[in-house]
């Protein structure tokens, strides 16, 4: 049975019927700005919309500083700042601590400090690799960077460790952990919305053909006639 097609008019009416207000969306945006650490933007948004911020802006700033340290590649600074904020965050979260140490190793390799990288790996990371197979495999993957150096032949799985995305990923994990320690949502609700949409569209896709959304543009792709 071919999937039934939902007409555009019908779909548009469904869209129309969804109950959402500007305030709702403003709250989602505020949540995003706060969670992701856009302090200035959150302050401005609070001013421009007259909305109260869900948290005080200083707490955003400390997370922002940590994230920026990681994005700069200054892992040591980030770790210090996390510990200043709350030492328990890293104490109680070995996986996160490992991730940060791994990032530090990556930065050493990026800088070309091969000797320092080796020393750091042996002293700091190898013992942790024994704690868990996952740590070990991550450590191995990272060390492989040394083997390839700047060779373009390095497999993508290894090359990606040097990418900005890897820094962002680490920063994101640290951010989540801090938020969790503050009993805040650890992820922006907009991210949840994207997930929910992708689940909803794929589920509905099994039942029917319907206009799919191009998420970032807000435009639709209609099922072929």
């Amino acid at each position: 049975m071919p999937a039934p097609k939902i007409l555009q008019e019908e779909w548009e009416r469904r869209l129309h019927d969804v109950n959402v207000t500007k305030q709702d969306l403003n709250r989602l945006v505020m949540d995003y700005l706060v969670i992701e650490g856009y302090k200035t933007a959150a302050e401005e948004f609070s001013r421009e919309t007259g909305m109260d911020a869900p948290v005080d802006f200083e707490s955003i700033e400390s997370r922002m500083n940590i994230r920026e340290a990681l994005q700069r590649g200054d892992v040591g600074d980030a770790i210090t700042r996390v510990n200043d904020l709350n030492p328990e965050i890293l104490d109680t979260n070995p996986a996160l601590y490992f991730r940060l140490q791994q990032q530090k190793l990556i930065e050493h390799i990026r800088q070309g400090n091969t000797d320092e990288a080796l020393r750091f790996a042996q002293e700091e990371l190898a013992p942790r690799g024994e704690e868990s197979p996952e740590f070990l495999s991550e450590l191995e993957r990272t060390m492989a960077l040394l083997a390839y150096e700047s060779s373009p032949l390095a497999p993508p799985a290894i090359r990606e460790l040097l990418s900005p995305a890897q820094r962002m990923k680490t920063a994101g994990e640290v951010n989540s952990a801090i938020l969790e320690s503050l009993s805040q949502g650890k992820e922006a609700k907009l991210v949840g919305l994207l997930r929910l949409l992708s689940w909803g569209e794929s589920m509905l896709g099994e039942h029917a053909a319907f206009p799919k959304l191009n998420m970032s543009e807000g435009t639709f792709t209609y099922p072929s006639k």
Partner: protein
Amino acid sequence: MTTRPSRSASIPSPSGASYPAVARSLDINFSIPFTRPGAAETSPRARRTSTVSRSPVRARGPSTSPVRSTHLSSSFPISLPTMNRGVAPGQRPQASSSTFQPRIVRQTSSPASHHDTTACVPGPAVSSSPTRVRRPSLGVHSAPAPTIVRSTPPYAPLASPFAGPTPPSHATTHADGFPLPAYLQHSILSDHLCTDPAQIAQGSRSTLAAPYPGVRAQTIVPASYPYLRRSPTPAMDSDSEGTPSPSPPPETQAIPTTTVLAPLTLMLPTRWNEQDRNALLSLTSDGCDLSFSGPSCTGEKDAAAARANHPIPPACGVYYFEVEILSSGSKGHISIGFSADSVRLSRIPGWEARSWGYHADDGYCFQGAKDGSSYGPTFGTGDVIGCGIDFAVQRAFYTKNGIFIKHLFDNIPTNTPLFPSVGMRHSGESIRVNFGATPFRYAIEDYVRMRKDKVWDGIMRDGKDWDPSKDIDDESGGMDVDEEGSPDVKRVLVEGVGKKASPVVDAETRATLHKLVLSYLEHHGYARTARAFRSQVARDNSLDPLPLAPVKREDAMDTDDYPKPSTSGSKPISISSLVHGPTHGGYDNASSDFDDLDPSDPETRDLQMRLSILNAVRAGDIDRALEGLHTHYPSAAEAQEGLLLFRLRCRKFVELVLAASAAFRRVKDAEKDAAHRDAGAEMGADGAAPELDGEGAMDVDDPSPEALSPSVLGDAPTGAHKSAVVASLSEIAKSALHEALAYGQGLEADYKADNRPTVRLHLRRTFGVVAYDDPENAGGDVGAMAGQEARVELAGEVNQAILESQGRPVHPALETLYRQTGACLVHLGLNGTGAAAYADARQELLES
């Protein structure tokens, strides 16, 4: 949000693509012993032609015409999605007994089900919709709407002989309507679930009561809900700052027959069906108590069963009801369960195919077979047995006296209407049902909450809801927590051992979010936020690792988070500013000065211009707004076939009237002031303004101590001076009024020839404002017309018009995204995907 367990789940596969066909043949072949004169009509052929003759009017007659043979298209009596418009989420309109007209409602709402797949006409006008005549039958695949049948829920074709009104013969009682049970209130479809026919009536009325946007909608755009095109219904757009949209426009006449949209009110069971019961069972007038009266069934096969008045919509996610055993009689042969309505009423639930039951005498459960299996404890007089169906996993469960027993049954269909049902066999047996009118013994809300958390966590983690085979099949262990009544315990345990890693937000998602947020901010003109956001994103970008080697350079390119600079000027979002942010100023701290927004950036300049126009509208300075529009966005001024300009000019008139009425209030105040001071002497002597109704002068109650204080009196102007002040104020007020009236006359003259109903109505309402002393605070329609909200709404429309004139999306992508999500979930729910009922975006994303 707390950490939640990882789940490697597979999505429950949608079952039964072929179900409708099977079910239909069953439907044809089974003859139902209860009177069913129209049985022959259930053949597919008859269905196509018989709608009119089978109008529910027949059910009104004195005959015992069966309720279930009258309707064609939907399993659920359908009304329209208007009932909760304007009601804040979570609040439901309380049925008021004075408006409670269930019988009438049934009659008016059930005809809607004839064409529920063709008409999306909100409101009570349903029964007069022309589509009903033109499209008499669901079965017809007519050219204009070839997909109609398919796009209905799969059970719809089945339902034709089932759903229908109870005959209007008996006095109505409370059991026909009650507030939606709490456990259903967070279903994403809760707005569509209805346990009270009176709500439908109320909803309809409220639709009628809000004619204004609707009238505009009708005349401006013939298509029904042009969300993606220019929307003439401001209420739906998030540009209006206010509360949820009051109601969809009653576009009755404008609806083309091709609009397929459908059933949006799903009636829940509220009582046993007067007609759909074995005659050996007597039913109390409230529809809740069933007693076996008459000779006991002696044969092995005989029994007496009854079904509820409405089937259970799978869109509930979980449906639950409880049955109290009032008396188990001598043998206690009572079965509690549910069945399709093709099942004979002389059989106890569980014995026949398409019926499921839990039996009191032996504690066995039966799934469409004569042989049952051991399930739970026996039950008897005084016990309360709960029966739930969890459509997300297509299983059922029972509770006894508030204690969860365990899950049972598999593959309960979501595409066959199933009715709560009980069966008895001996005299003296009697039960009382609770469909949610009173609190349940079992804490069903906890169950629902647990389910919902699981689904939500699964979606958030894996993009899947949970895997029923892993999660719930384990009957002994899986749901033990329910017995302890604390589902949270299990969650905590699973979390403790579960894998904790949160899903990583990848670079692409991050870029999408940046873009969504930035375009949202720009759309609504949050200029300073947008600038701050942009510069911070740019600064993040500038922190990217330095490319050291060719490899790494390549890396940087591959994984670039951000869209490449675009040269296309028509792009809605300034991508170039994202990328090149640092070159103009980079990050700095917020400046409170609006003017420091970099005017060299065309995007920013445009945003500023748009914003200043919107601010002018919001401030009531229509002249400035019009000037800006004409100068910078000439085509926007012509938007909506000139109606935008028309509305702006009307607003200008309203502003003039407001200014005049404010001036008159100043006159009154001055007079009052004078009257206070000259108390006894020249009271009202200078009462100038003829337009005044004298109220001001009379309003001398409660003289303020300030006014009587000698020092103030000493400083006050002389009486003559005061009269002069009043007179001059009065002059100002009169001239303001004249200006307003002159403008109004010009307006009327300019649009005299425009006979569009929208224009006429809007003009009339606009002029109506003149009649009020203080229109802004007059409340009601006048207040809405004159107040700040109207300005904000108009500003939203101007915003849309400008954006549209630039070829930009009328709605922010973020809003569309949210709506798309909601629409998907509603559709899934209506299609019987139980899990969708739990994916409560509003609660999880907006209200938590």
